[in-house]
C-alpha cells in the first residue's frame, strides 16, 4: 500500500461522494446554498488529502499504482482503473483541488442570486468536475484517462450551458462538446491503435516497453499524432481552439476553473504524461511545437481585438496553452508543465478578478468599465498581479515559467516558433495592459454602468449601481491566488531550479524587455493616449480585420457544419426516405396495383368461377395428354 496513492484516492473519492449526495438526494440539491456548503466542505477535505498525497509522493521514489479490474476478459483484465500518484500527478492534483475549492467558495458569492435549484445543480456539476479532473490526473492508464477526459468534457458542456435558457450559452455548450469530441475521436483511435501494437493501456507498462526498446516504432507516428489530436481539441490548439472563447458564456467561476486552470490543460498534461512516447516520434513532436507556437501567436493577436474582458482572457488562455505545447514540442515537457501550473494559478486569479468586475459592473465590455481602481481597489490589485504574472514580469508567477518555455523552445532548435513566441510575449503584455488601463484606470465610462451591452448577465443584473469590491467569499479566493502567484514568482526568482537545458544568457533580458515594451505601448496608447488607438489599429489593417473576423476559422467550421455536414445528412436522409425506402414502396405499390388488377377478375358471378374451373380442368387435361 502506498501512502500517496491512498491519499490521492481519498481525495478523488470525496468529490465523487459529494456529487452522488447532491445528485441522488434531490431535496438537498434543491436547497441551494446548503448544497454549496456540502460541496465546499468535501472539496476542502479533498484539497487536504491532495496536499498530503503530494507531500508523500515527493518523498517516495517509485509508487506502484492502485489498480482494480474494470473490464474483464479471458486472459486477465482488459482494462483497469486505479490511482497512479507520482510527483507530476500529485502536484497537478493539488492544483485541481485548490482551484476547484477556491472557485467553489467564490461561486457562493458570485451566484448568490441564483435560484436555489439552479445553485444546487451548479454545485453538483462542480463536484462532478472535481472528481473527473482528479480522476484524469491520477489515471494510471489510457482507458481511465479517456474516461475522465470525456467526463471533464461533459462537465464543461454542462457548466457552459448552465444558463441554458440563453441561446448563446446553449450553442456554446454544444459547440464546445463537439469540437473537443472531434479531437477525442483522434485520441480514441490513438488509444486503440496503441493497444493493438503493445497489448496494454497502462502507462508504466508502456514506459517499460519504451525503456526496453520493445515498442515497435513503425507507424508509431500515427499513434502519437492521433493522441495529439485529442490534446488539440481539449487544449484548444489551432484549429480546434474555436470553442474556448465561446465557452465564456458559462459563469465566470466556471471559466476560471475549467476553461483556464484545469480542464483545458488536460491536453498538455496528457502530452507531459506520455512525453516518453512522443519522444520516439520527433516529427509529431515538431508539429506539436509549431502548432503550439502558431496557436499562441494567433490567439494573442485575437486577444488584442476583443472588447469582452472574458474573451480577452479566453484568448490569452489559448495563447498560453500554445506556449505549453510549444515547450513540449521542443522536447522539454517539464517546462510546459511548469507553465501549466503557474498559469493555472494566475489565470484563475485573472478570471476571478474579472468575475468580480463583471459582477459589479454587470457587463463584459471593457469599454463599459473604466476607472474601477477607485471603486474596487482590491480587485484592481489582484487583477494587476495576475496581469503582471501573465506578462511575465520578474517576481511574478508567470515570469520564470515563461522564461523556461522560451528557453526550451530555443534549446529545442525551433527557431521560428521561438520568434513567434517572443512576439506573442509582447502582444500578451500589450493586450493584458490594454484591459488594465481601459478598465481599471482612466475615467469612468460615461454612460450608465448598468447598461447591458454584450451578453446580459442574469446573476449580475442587480449590479452596476453601487460599484464596490466584492464580499469576502469572493475576495478571499482571489487574494489567496494572488498571494500564491506572487509567492511562486518570488520563490522561483530567488531559488532558481535546475535548468534541463542550457538557456542562452540573453534570453531573460530579452523576454523582460519585450514584455515591458508591450506594457509601455499599452500605457502610451490607452492611458497617456500618446499613441492613437485607432491609428495603431489601422497600422495593422489587414491583421485587425482578420482578428475581428477571428481569422475566419469559426466561419470555416460553421460552413463545414451547415454547408457540408448538415446538407450532406439531409441528402442522406432524403435518399433513405425516398430512394432506399422508395424502392421498397415501389415493390409494395406494384403488389397493390397487381392485386387491384387481379381483383377485377373476381366478378362475383358464380358462373364465371365455373368457367375458371372448367378452363383449369381443360388445362390439366391438355397437360396430362401432352405428348412427351
Amino acid at each position, binding site marked *: 500500500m502506498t501512502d500517496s496513492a491512498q491519499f490521492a484516492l481519498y481525495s478523488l473519492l470525496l468529490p465523487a461522494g459529494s456529487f452522488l449526495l447532491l445528485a441522488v438526494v434531490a431535496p438537498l440539491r434543491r436547497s441551494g446554498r446548503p448544497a454549496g456548503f456540502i460541496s465546499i466542505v468535501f472539496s476542502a477535505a479533498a484539497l487536504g488529502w491532495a496536499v498530503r498525497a503530494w507531500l508523500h509522493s515527493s518523498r517516495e521514489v517509485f509508487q506502484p499504482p492502485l489498480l482494480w479490474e474494470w473490464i474483464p476478459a479471458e486472459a486477465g483484465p482488459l482494462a483497469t482503473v486505479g490511482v497512479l500518484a507520482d510527483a507530476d500527478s500529485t502536484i497537478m492534483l493539488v492544483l485541481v483541488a485548490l482551484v476547484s475549492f477556491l472557485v467553489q467558495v467564490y461561486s457562493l458569492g458570485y451566484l448568490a442570486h441564483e435560484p436555489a435549484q439552479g445553485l444546487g445543480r451548479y454545485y453538483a456539476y462542480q463536484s462532478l468536475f472535481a472528481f473527473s479532473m482528479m480522476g484524469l490526473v491520477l489515471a494510471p492508464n489510457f482507458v481511465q484517462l479517456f474516461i475522465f477526459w470525456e467526463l471533464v468534457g461533459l462537465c464543461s458542456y454542462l457548466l457552459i450551458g448552465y444558463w441554458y435558457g440563453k441561446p448563446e450559452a446553449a450553442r456554446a455548450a454544444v459547440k464546445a462538446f463537439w469540437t473537443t469530441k472531434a479531437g477525442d475521436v483522434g485520441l480514441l483511435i490513438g488509444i486503440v491503435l496503441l493497444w493493438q501494437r503493445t497489448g496494454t493501456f497502462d502507462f508504466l507498462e508502456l514506459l517499460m516497453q519504451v525503456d526496453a526498446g520493445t515498442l515497435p516504432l513503425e507507424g508509431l507516428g500515427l499513434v502519437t499524432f492521433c493522441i495529439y489530436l485529442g490534446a488539440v481539441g481539449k487544449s484548444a490548439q489551432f484549429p480546434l481552439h474555436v470553442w474556448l472563447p465561446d465557452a465564456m458564456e458559462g459563469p465566470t467561476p466556471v471559466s476560471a476553473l475549467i476553461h483556464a486552470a484545469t480542464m483545458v490543460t488536460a491536453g498538455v498534461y496528457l502530452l507531459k504524461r506520455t512525453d516518453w512516447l512522443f519522444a520516439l516520434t520527433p516529427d509529431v513532436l515538431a508539429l506539436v511545437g509549431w502548432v503550439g507556437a502558431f496557436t499562441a501567436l494567433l490567439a494573442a493577436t485575437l486577444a488584442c481585438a476583443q472588447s469582452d474582458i472574458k474573451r480577452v482572457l479566453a484568448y490569452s488562455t489559448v495563447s498560453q496553452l500554445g506556449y505549453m505545447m510549444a515547450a513540449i514540442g521542443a522536447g522539454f515537457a517539464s517546462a510546459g508543465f511548469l507553465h501549466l501550473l503557474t498559469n493555472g494559478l494566475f489565470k484563475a486569479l485573472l478570471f476571478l478578478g474579472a468575475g468580480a468586475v463583471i459582477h459589479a459592473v454587470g457587463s463584459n465590455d471593457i469599454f463599459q468599465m473604466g476607472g474601477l481602481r477607485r471603486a474596487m481597489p482590491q480587485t484592481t490589485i489582484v487583477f494587476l498581479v495576475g496581469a503582471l504574472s501573465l506578462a511575465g514580469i520578474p517576481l511574478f508567477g508567470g515570469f520564470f515559467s515563461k522564461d523556461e518555455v522560451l528557453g526550451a523552445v530555443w534549446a529545442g532548435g525551433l527557431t521560428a516558433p521561438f520568434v513567434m513566441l517572443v512576439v506573442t510575449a509582447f502582444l500578451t503584455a500589450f493586450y493584458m495592459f490594454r484591459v488594465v488601463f481601459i478598465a481599471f484606470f482612466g475615467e469612468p465610462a460615461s454612460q450608465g454602468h448598468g447598461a447591458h451591452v454584450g451578453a446580459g448577465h442574469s446573476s449580475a443584473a442587480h449590479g452596476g449601481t453601487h460599484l464596490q469590491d466584492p464580499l469576502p467569499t469572493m475576495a478571499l479566493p482571489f487574494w489567496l491566488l494572488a498571494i500564491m502567484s506572487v509567492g511562486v514568482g518570488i520563490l522561483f526568482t530567488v531559488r532558481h531550479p535546475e535548468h534541463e537545458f542550457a538557456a542562452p544568457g540573453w534570453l531573460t533580458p530579452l523576454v523582460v524587455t519585450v514584455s515591458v515594451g508591450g506594457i509601455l505601448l499599452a500605457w502610451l496608447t490607452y492611458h497617456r493616449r500618446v499613441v492613437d488607438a485607432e491609428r495603431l489599429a489601422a497600422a495593422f489593417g489587414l491583421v485587425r480585420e482578420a482578428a475581428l473576423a477571428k481569422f475566419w476559422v469559426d466561419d470555416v467550421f460553421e460552413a463545414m457544419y451547415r454547408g457540408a455536414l448538415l446538407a450532406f445528412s439531409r441528402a442522406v436522409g432524403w435518399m433513405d426516405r425516398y430512394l432506399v425506402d422508395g424502392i421498397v414502396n415501389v415493390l409494395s405499390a406494384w403488389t397493390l396495383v397487381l392485386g387491384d388488377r*387481379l*381483383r*377485377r*377478375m*373476381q*366478378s*362475383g*358471378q*358464380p*358462373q364465371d*368461377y*365455373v*368457367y375458371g374451373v*372448367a378452363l383449369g380442368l381443360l388445362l390439366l387435361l391438355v397437360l396430362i395428354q401432352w405428348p412427351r
Partner: protein
Amino acid sequence: MPAGMLPVGTSAMPLHAYLTLAATLFAIGLFGVVTRRNTIGILLGIELMLNAVNINLVAFARFNGDPAGMVFTVFTICITVAEVAVGLALVILIFRIRRTVIADHLDLLRG
C-alpha cells in the same frame, strides 16, 4: 329390367362406353351451369354433372369388381340430396333478400 337377364361376364358394352356417356352428361351439365341465368337452372345443371359422376363411379365399381365405388355412389347421392335441400333453401333466402333468382345479379363474391 331384372338383373338376371344379363349373362354374367359377357357384356358387350365396354367401360369406355359408360365413361363416354358420363362425360357427355357432364359436359351438358357444365353447359347448363355456365349458361343458365336462373339460379335454379344452375342447380339443375349441377345435378346433371353429379349424376354423370355417379355413373362413372358405378361403372368403375362394376368393371373393377370392387363394391366400394358403389358405396361412394350412395354417399354422393345422399350428399347431393342434402346439398340440393340447402341450395334451394339458399335460393329462396337470396330471393327473399334480393328479390331475384337471376344469377347475374348475385355478385356478393365480387372482389
